[in-house]
């Protein structure tokens, strides 16, 4: 049964490019998460809270889901429910057909979505005649290679920059280079056209918030924002379990997800979508595809997963074989690899993927890394025991190993037999060498020898009279057990300190992210920004209609052309912000009438004017502001757009702005 799988594993191990790629970033992946987690003093407590929230949601899924759906519909987004992959595809095709009657060659710009992988979205829509373009850099690369993602967060983790260079040379016709910023720029210019001309945008959903009907979509490059906001039709795909009760809960999970996924305090773009913008049509397809059955099975806990990818990053097996090594009995690559995939793939898609759970030492690194504390080893054992929702009707023939284990278990359940067997082994040991060189086909013999059993087992030599032997000179100091270290005590500096502390923290965080902060007095704002634009020879900007301090008028008076819609030729966008978040250096930017969200997305430079009194300490505080749910969509911007999809090397400026300048205005 596992023959193909073993073969595949050998292949992956023997592939030097793959091994180099996996090894090169293994430590980086782990260290990034650890540093981010360590920076949050109450990490352990947050994990437990997150576990409890997810447990509550899954326990009460029907109620939470119907509350969520009602809210989303109230907000003007059309909700569709799909019981399986085929139905989800049919719905997507119907939506496309109704929006563009008579057209079967639509251009579809797609953001990253694991659900779309699960249901085979791309091949299905392509065979209907549409053109689907993956716009996340990693996904774009693997689409060009005609592959599946090798990781749920960093899909091209199995490739080296040289391979990407060759690929782009061949498929995009650019001269060969292995310079990552150049490669990123090439993808950007190819995709820019796709965004601006796409008929439909497709995205995933990281979290749905029941209380407010929020669709939260988290990305770094800006492609996700393009897909959700620029095309006239937006279709969001989401698994039915990806729900949270409230925006407070969302704040908690946003403190865990990006830290676990990429080691960032917050992803660059956190979109909170509530309503369609302008004349846009928005659809949400909520997918079951086996989730209800998993919920009623002993694998229920796997539905707590928030798809952060941490468990893949720490898994020693993933490090050896990468995502493409996880195949089913029929040879198909599992849509979800790694520890999470070894449970959810057989859970959702059946026993074809049960063998994945065998490729695991139960080391527990995954459980330790999981931000929602899912007991993955326990669930992996349940998969091994056949406790999946849809077990195969016929039992498989026991392997030689299983046969041996059955005999051993039978002996172990009878103490007399066990003792006898133990005697026999001891006797046999007398004629054996110190170590046995077992043949390779035993499995064990591939890489190690087997120690000879002891001639006299412990039980044979155990003597009651030993109990009298005492070592007199032994120091009998029995001390109290030391208490575990409590760890560094939480220091929430902002909470007690005043406005200056907030500004300093905001400044520090934003600079770390590669943004810049210009602190100025209100009288100086006009000249500062004009000088900025002048220095870069920018005469045309996209802007909010109601910039703070009536700044738009000042621009016009100085012969700067101001538009409210985006266009490829505008290099700078100027916006305000609802608030800035000190602990993450983020800007909360609401959309709506006269406040085009594209101004903070499409131009390569983003300038934001923020009153210095409008800083809050935490994300949680920001998400409590009533304006958040009133705006059709809000984006939380945390630094300039970035990617690390090629060799985990950070590159600034992908689809969103390369530069982010915040003008912090005093008085």
């Amino acid at each position, binding site marked *: 049964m596992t023959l193909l799988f073993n073969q595949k594993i050998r292949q992956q191990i023997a592939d030097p490019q793959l091994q180099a790629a996996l090894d090169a970033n293994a430590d980086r992946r782990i260290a990034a998460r650890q540093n981010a987690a360590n920076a949050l003093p109450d990490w352990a407590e947050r994990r437990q809270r997150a576990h409890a929230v997810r447990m509550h949601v899954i326990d009460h899924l029907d109620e939470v889901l119907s509350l969520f759906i009602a809210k989303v519909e109230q907000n003007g987004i059309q909700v569709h429910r799909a019981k399986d992959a085929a139905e989800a595809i049919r719905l997507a095709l119907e939506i496309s057909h109704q929006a563009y009657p008579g057209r079967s060659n639509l251009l579809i710009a797609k953001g990253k979505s694991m659900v779309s992988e699960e249901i085979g979205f791309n091949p299905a829509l392509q065979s209907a005649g549409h053109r689907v373009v993956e716009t996340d850099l990693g996904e774009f690369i693997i689409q060009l290679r005609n592959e599946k993602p090798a990781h749920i967060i960093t899909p091209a983790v199995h490739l080296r920059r040289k391979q990407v260079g060759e690929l782009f040379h061949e498929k995009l016709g650019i001269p060969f280079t292995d310079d990552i910023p150049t490669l990123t720029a090439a993808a950007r210019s190819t995709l820019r056209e796709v965004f601006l001309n796409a008929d439909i945008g497709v995205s995933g959903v990281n979290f749905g918030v029941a209380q407010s009907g929020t669709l939260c979509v988290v990305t770094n490059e800006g492609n996700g924002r393009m897909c959700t906001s620029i095309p006239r039709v937006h279709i969001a795909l989401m698994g039915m379990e990806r729900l949270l009760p409230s925006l407070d809960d969302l704040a908690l999970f946003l403190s865990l997800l990006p830290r676990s996924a990429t080691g960032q305090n917050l992803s660059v773009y956190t979109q909170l979508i509530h309503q369609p913008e302008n004349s846009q049509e928005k659809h949400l397809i909520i997918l079951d595809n086996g989730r209800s059955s998993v919920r009623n099975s002993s694998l229920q806990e796997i539905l707590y997963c928030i798809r952060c990818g941490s468990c893949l990053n720490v898994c020693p097996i993933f490090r050896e074989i990468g995502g493409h090594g996880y195949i089913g009995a029929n040879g198909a690559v599992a849509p979800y690899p790694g520890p999470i995939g070894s449970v959810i793939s057989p859970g959702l898609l059946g026993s074809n993927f049960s063998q994945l759970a065998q490729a695991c*030492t*139960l080391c527990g690194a995954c459980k330790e890394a999981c931000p929602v504390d899912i007991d993955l080893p326990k669930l992996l054992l349940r998969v091994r025991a056949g406790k999946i929702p849809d077990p195969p009707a016929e039992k498989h023939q026991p392997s030689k190993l299983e046969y041996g284990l*059955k005999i051993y278990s039978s002996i172990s359940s009878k103490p007399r037999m066990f003792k006898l067997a133990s005697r026999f082994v001891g006797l046999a040991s007398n004629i054996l060498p110190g170590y046995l060189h077992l043949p390779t086909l035993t499995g064990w013999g591939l890489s190690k020898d087997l120690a000879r059993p002891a001639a006299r087992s412990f039980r044979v030599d155990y003597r009651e009279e030993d109990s009298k032997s*005492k070592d007199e*000179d032994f120091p009998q100091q029995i001390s109290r057990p030391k208490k575990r270290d409590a760890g560094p005590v939480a220091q929430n500096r902002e909470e007690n300190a005043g406005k200056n502390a907030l500004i300093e923290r905001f400044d520090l965080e934003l600079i770390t992210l590669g943004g810049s902060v210009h602190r100025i007095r209100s009288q100086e704002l006009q000249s500062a920004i004009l000088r900025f634009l002048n220095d870069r020879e920018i005469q045309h900007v996209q802007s909010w209609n109601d910039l703070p301090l009536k700044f738009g008028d000042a621009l016009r008076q100085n012969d700067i052309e101001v538009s409210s819609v985006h266009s490829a030729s505008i290099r700078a966008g100027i916006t305000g912000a609802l608030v800035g978040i000190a602990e993450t250096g983020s800007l909360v930017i609401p959309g709506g009438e006269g406040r085009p969200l594209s101004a903070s997305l499409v131009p390569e430079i983003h300038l934001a004017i923020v009153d210095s009194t409008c800083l809050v300490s935490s994300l949680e505080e920001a998400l409590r502001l009533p304006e958040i749910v009133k705006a059709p969509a809000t984006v939380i911007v945390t630094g300039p757009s970035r990617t690390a999809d090629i060799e985990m090397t950070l590159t600034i400026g992908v689809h969103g702005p390369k530069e982010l300048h915040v003008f912090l205005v005093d008085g």
Partner: protein
Amino acid sequence: MPTVQLFVTCLVDTFYPETGHAIVRILRRLGVNVEFPQAQTCCGQPSFNAGLWKETRPVAENTIQVFESAPGPVIVPSGSCAIMIKHGYPELFSDDPEWLDRAQELSARTYEFTEYLVDVLGVTDLGARWPGKITYHASCHPTRHLGLNRQPLALLANVQDAELVTLPEYEECCGFGGVFSIKHPELSAEMLKRKITNIEISQAPTLVVTEAGCRLHIAGGLIRQKKPQRVVHIAEVLDHR
């Protein structure tokens, strides 16, 4: 004088009896009365981890029965076997309230050896002496599933004349995983290779572990690769003077 029951585990019983004897001596020196119920066998982990739960039940029932008539804490020189009793048994009997109760009674008084020394007896200095460099591999089960790391390190820190050096990637799995090492020999081999390279980098001639399984695996790999380093169970270091 507290009385404890030794659950020696099948691997120690069969391959490494010296570990068992060391534990008996250490505990007795501390004034603990050690008993060894002769009817004990294996904890059932091999078949449990292979998914053969039906076959595992009678093994678990035997262990539960054997220790029901043996009072006091049950001491196990292996974190994975302790986990099997503490987490595996309740899982195995989750649909059988009567056995579940009995399993939980046993689970509540089961301790891994270093856990018992440090957390229950409050001992970290056993007056041991071990000349030379040693390095410590944090076996996955005790470390991650039981949260034991501080305990073995505290015990080793008090061994006279021993220089405890850090093993690079000391928390990485060695690739044993019981049936895993047979079902997926290629993966197991890669992980073992990494572990042995790290042992060489540490420059210690002796690797200390708290699991007989990791010992069987790593020592077997060292022999195959003709390396001079040896692997010992922590009890043997703590018993040495």
